[in-house]
């Protein structure tokens, strides 16, 4: 048995293992988690010939610097990411959605995501990780998942097994589409807000705050006036739910959100826009656009067909 692993030279800002997440645990306080940008996660696994539900490394803003020890392995990066690969004395600029072969002591340096937030690294093999409730996904706030529920740290080793050596070099041309108008449906407390407040929410621009992470995206902008009650009886939350607390600034729940909350729900983001929503970086402006449930369902189907189409081209 050969010994294959990555040594983490620099961990990056928020580098975790993510897969499709865990189901059926909301009622005991555990959210889905899982890859924030599901399409890019799936594309990464497909490009290196993996099963689509294997865990990948997810990074945000600045990614990790990893040194590889072992036999040959193929890797790929998806998202909109600036990275390079050091092979012996050679340094090459990397392209996303294109596989590279690493050899013993090669390094991959993920410098930054470009006007986006999340990127993915997948390998033609599997990371040796423990499942917790059917998923490796790390939720750092609740210390749940593989790697003891913690993000990657400097100097740790990531063991690799089941390397698939019969993988050809693969490449697709794909550009992440950016989005500024986030489509939403009215939430269950939409009528808690004044006519003016509703208008503000649907017509004005909001800025994504720096205080955004895998739990939630905080927005800053014109305040949304509540005329009924700034609290509700605590009830379930979902990813994509937009809550407005007493200060009038909306918060969008993201994949690691708390499962129960007591702020009014003004709206919910349409599933079709979730992958692109999470890629909007702090400081960027967004606007909301209201759509009906039936439109949201149709748009999601089209988005899924597009994802399946991309996967089938690989």
């Amino acid at each position, binding site marked *: 048995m050969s010994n294959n692993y990555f040594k983490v030279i620099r961990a990056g800002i928020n580098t975790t293992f993510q897969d499709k997440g865990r189901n059926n645990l909301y*009622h005991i306080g555990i959210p889905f988690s899982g890859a924030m940008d599901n399409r890019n996660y799936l594309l990464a696994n497909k490009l290196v010939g993996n099963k689509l539900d294997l865990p990948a490394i997810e990074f945000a803003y600045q990614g990790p610097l990893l040194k590889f020890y072992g036999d040959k392995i193929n890797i790929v990066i998806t998202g909109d990411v600036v990275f390079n690969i050091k092979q012996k004395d050679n340094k090459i600029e990397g392209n996303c959605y294109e596989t590279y072969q690493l050899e013993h002591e090669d390094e991959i340096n993920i410098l930054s995501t470009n006007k986006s937030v999340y990127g993915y690294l997948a390998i033609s093999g599997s990371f040796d990780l423990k499942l917790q409730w059917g998923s490796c996904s790390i939720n750092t706030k609740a210390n749940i998942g593989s790697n003891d529920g913690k993000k990657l740290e400097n100097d740790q080793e990531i063991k690799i097994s089941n390397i698939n050596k019969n993988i050809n070099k693969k490449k697709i041309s794909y550009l992440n589409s950016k989005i500024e108008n986030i489509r939403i449906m009215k939430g*269950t407390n939409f009528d808690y807000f004044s006519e003016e407040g509703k208008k503000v929410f649907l017509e004005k621009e909001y800025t994504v705050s720096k205080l955004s992470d895998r739990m939630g995206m905080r927005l800053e902008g014109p305040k949304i006036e509540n005329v009924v009650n700034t609290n509700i009886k605590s*009830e379930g939350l979902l990813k994509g739910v937009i809550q407005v607390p007493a200060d009038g600034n909306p918060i969008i729940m993201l994949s690691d959100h708390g499962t129960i909350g007591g702020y009014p*729900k003004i709206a*919910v983001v349409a599933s079709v826009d979730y992958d692109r929503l999470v890629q909007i970086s702090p400081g960027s402006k967004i606007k909301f656009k209201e759509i009906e449930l039936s439109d949201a369902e149709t748009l*999601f189907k089209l988005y899924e067909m597009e994802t399946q189409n991309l996967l089938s081209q690989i």
Partner: protein
Amino acid sequence: MIKNISNLGDAALYCDFGAEVNKQINSEVIKYFNTIREKNIKGINNLTPSYNKLIISYDLNLTSFNKIKEEIEKLTQSETSKSISKNLEIPVCCDESFSLDMERLEKKLNLKRDEILENFFNKEFFCYMTGFIAGMPFLGDLDEQMRAQRLETPRVKVPKGSVGMTEQFANIYTFESPGGWNIIGNTPLEVFDSSKQKEPNLINPGDTVKFKQITLEEYKNYNE
């Protein structure tokens, strides 16, 4: 009974059982929760019961709002009458080192320490829901005279095992976390065990709970 079903986004059903928070309404929520769990309806991937609401999440690739709504409306009362609740006893130590907010409570409630503890330990609690953080039970109802607001400034770290009170509810911090409840004691019992693949949480919605006061000595020897 479900009073109204609406959509919460495009991947969840929002079942409203009424505006009030009481045991009767919550018992209905829990009955539906247990029944739907057992039915394994295609596409449903999460259920979140709370005081008076039940949120049913589904995979939009497998089903849709109308399909799930139809399935839920088919459920009759007789199918939702099964009860699988447990009676639990939770040991709590109220040594000074654990009862972080006892002085505050004495002032706010205008009751003496002994009166607060006597009332608390004689009460039979009902678990309305679990969540917020993994496994945290929301237990009601405290008597009117025992109801205090949460701390003005929440603690950055509430110790694991802390037993707290706010308004009509008691809770247990299943692991160290930020929080604003009035802490009166600590349990040595593992209320949430993340190493368990099945049923990691001890207390489920619908269960009844009685707290039993233990001494510091008993607390220290509890896990031996």
